[in-house]
């Protein structure tokens, strides 16, 4: 059968972005970001912008069982791409500033500091509808982080998923038929 990715508009570039979500690639890109910043090249995302994206990603995929470190790793591919690609940086920065602008107007706080989840949810709903929001921001963050969040092997045991099995001989002797509650 058929599983991955078909819910997203597919592009080769999109796939490359997703495949870059490995720890090694992320680590390497962080080095690149720092190097470019020191050279005075295009800026990368600001810490405050990353903090907003982490909060936003958690609001899209809110799992109380996952601490923020998982969401931080999930937004790293965005950070990495923004460091390399000015258009992505602009898109993300604009989306974040729009969210913060609306949040400030509504309660005098930045998006990431709004404590009431339902208020943040309302801001995301507005983001999807309001023509003044950058049209691709939501999809960019959604399509990237839905992969980079759930593809972290460290996430899997938190949901009871055991991951690769071939190296352990499959599940033949490890519980493929151990269900007895029926």
């Amino acid at each position, binding site marked *: *059968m058929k*599983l991955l990715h078909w819910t997203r508009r*597919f592009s080769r570039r999109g796939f490359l972005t997703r495949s870059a979500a490995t720890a090694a690639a992320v680590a390497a890109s962080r080095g690149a970001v720092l190097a470019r910043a020191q050279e005075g090249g295009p800026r990368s995302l600001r810490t405050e912008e990353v903090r907003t994206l982490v909060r936003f990603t958690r609001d899209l995929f809110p799992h109380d069982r996952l601490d923020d470190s998982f969401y931080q790793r999930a937004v790293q591919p965005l950070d990495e791409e923004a460091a390399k690609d000015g258009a992505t940086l602009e898109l993300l920065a604009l989306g974040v500033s729009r969210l913060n602008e609306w949040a400030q107007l509504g309660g005098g706080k930045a998006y990431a500091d709004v404590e009431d989840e339902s208020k943040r949810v309302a801001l995301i709903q507005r983001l999807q509808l309001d023509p003044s929001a950058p049209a691709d921001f939501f999809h960019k963050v959604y399509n990237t982080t839905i992969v980079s969040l759930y593809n972290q092997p460290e996430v899997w045991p938190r949901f009871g998923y055991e991951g690769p099995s*071939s190296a352990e001989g499959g599940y033949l002797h490890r519980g493929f038929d151990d269900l007895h509650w029926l």
Partner: protein
Amino acid sequence: MPAKFDLNDSSVVVIIGSGAGGGTLANELAQKGISSVVLEAGKRIEISDFRNDEDAMFGLFTWLDPRTASGSWYVAQTSPDLPAWICKLVGGTTVHWGACALRFQEHEFKTRTRYGSVTGANLLDWPIELKAMEPYYDRAELKMGVTGTHGIPRLPVSNHGKVLFAGAKKMGYTQFMTTNMAINSVPRDGRAQCQQTGFCIQGCTFAAKWSTLYTELPRAEATGRTEVRPESQVLHIEHDNSGKVTGVVYADRTSAISRQRARLVAVAGNAIETPRLLLNSSSSLFPQGLANSSGQVGKNYMRHMTSTVFAIFDRPVHMYRGTAQSGIVMDEARLDTQRGFVGGYQMELLPQGLPSFAQNIVPNAWGRDRASIIDNYANIAGVWLIGEDLPRETNRITLHSSRKDQYGLPIPNVHSDDHPNDLVMQRHAVGQAEALYQSIGAKRTVFRPPFPSTHNMGTARMSDNPRDGVVNRWGQAHDVKNLFVSDGSQFTSSGGENPTLTIVALAIRQAEYIADQMSRSAL
């Protein structure tokens, strides 16, 4: 050892594609002493390249060349540039298939006779009946080692299967079992038995699952009569003034263009690329596309009625453990128009690993409700509903009017509108699946509309009549004697069963016919 043929050797059969159809045909011909060159667009990888990693394997072997989709079907809305999930590598989609190996039923070969005239459908009986197919189904099952046939034991029941079968029993169903699978339940044919890894779709690391990559193709090569050329994408099929095909033009990995001459060409590129190639091979002699005097090339595209129902329980299931799709309920596969539709459907296990489940469960949704489904991942079971969809002339593969691929050829567009019969069947199937899981205490069920199609059929269909079909009962083009179609494009109806076993059976049968015709110098 693998053969090496000269580009100007016009005695060879050229086979385009190395999956269930092309790979099987190559080996069957080789065993009969017939030489072939297999041109495969994708790379050659080995079993050692398989990883238990959904994302990585998707990237490694999916056919990602540009395509577009249109029409009312769900996939055109949610995945317009990936309408089908099929593979581009040596072995084709047999590397990734779930290995459910079911025969079509008697009535599914006679849809026009048995269903009557259905408005908006282009029904036609196959020019062959189940009875004529049975010896070839036997041979396909023995070749592939299909469990539950010919004394080959069935696979054991997984947790996921136990849940499905408990619900089936409550529903009063009687035909449920681990599926007829082309996966070894015991060591057989030089391959290991299934280790219940759960990663069938990502390539079987134990080679317990039949795939042409490590069965048919190496065996064909061992005869010294078959050459497999990976990364060789065919662009055109050429013909002479008499209308016989003479060879193919293809691009290799460096995009260098070569011309392989041929005595006969067999096209097995799956039901999107096969008609695309025929349409892209139009000429002054064949202005509508090669072998298309009927106008049916690309039409009658079928992809099965599909949907998935997942169910959340309050205790663990661990659906990802074990042979992915080994579990089936067949009671709804019968023809019974009292249900409000023609044709029938199968209910087959469909587990997903956490990453793909989380990414696909509710497309484009976000927030607490969606997250709560994923939070229950360990307690979830899922069943895939796959039923017959009806051929329609307007459901078709066409050449895109403006977009071109890297070789300057028009990319394919896949157009499909659901027939009302498909939608009635879908509602019935989803309702039955929900009731099945609720009958054993599911807390919640989640409906998942169709994924991109892995079953693609009908776009160069069989008919005895050259006016309403592209190929005859042997898969031989009506218009071009030495051109064959060897994949699911030949199907006159889709049946309610996974297509691979029928593709393999047809390839075995076609090889016999080709060998016979060659021995009489008729080809």
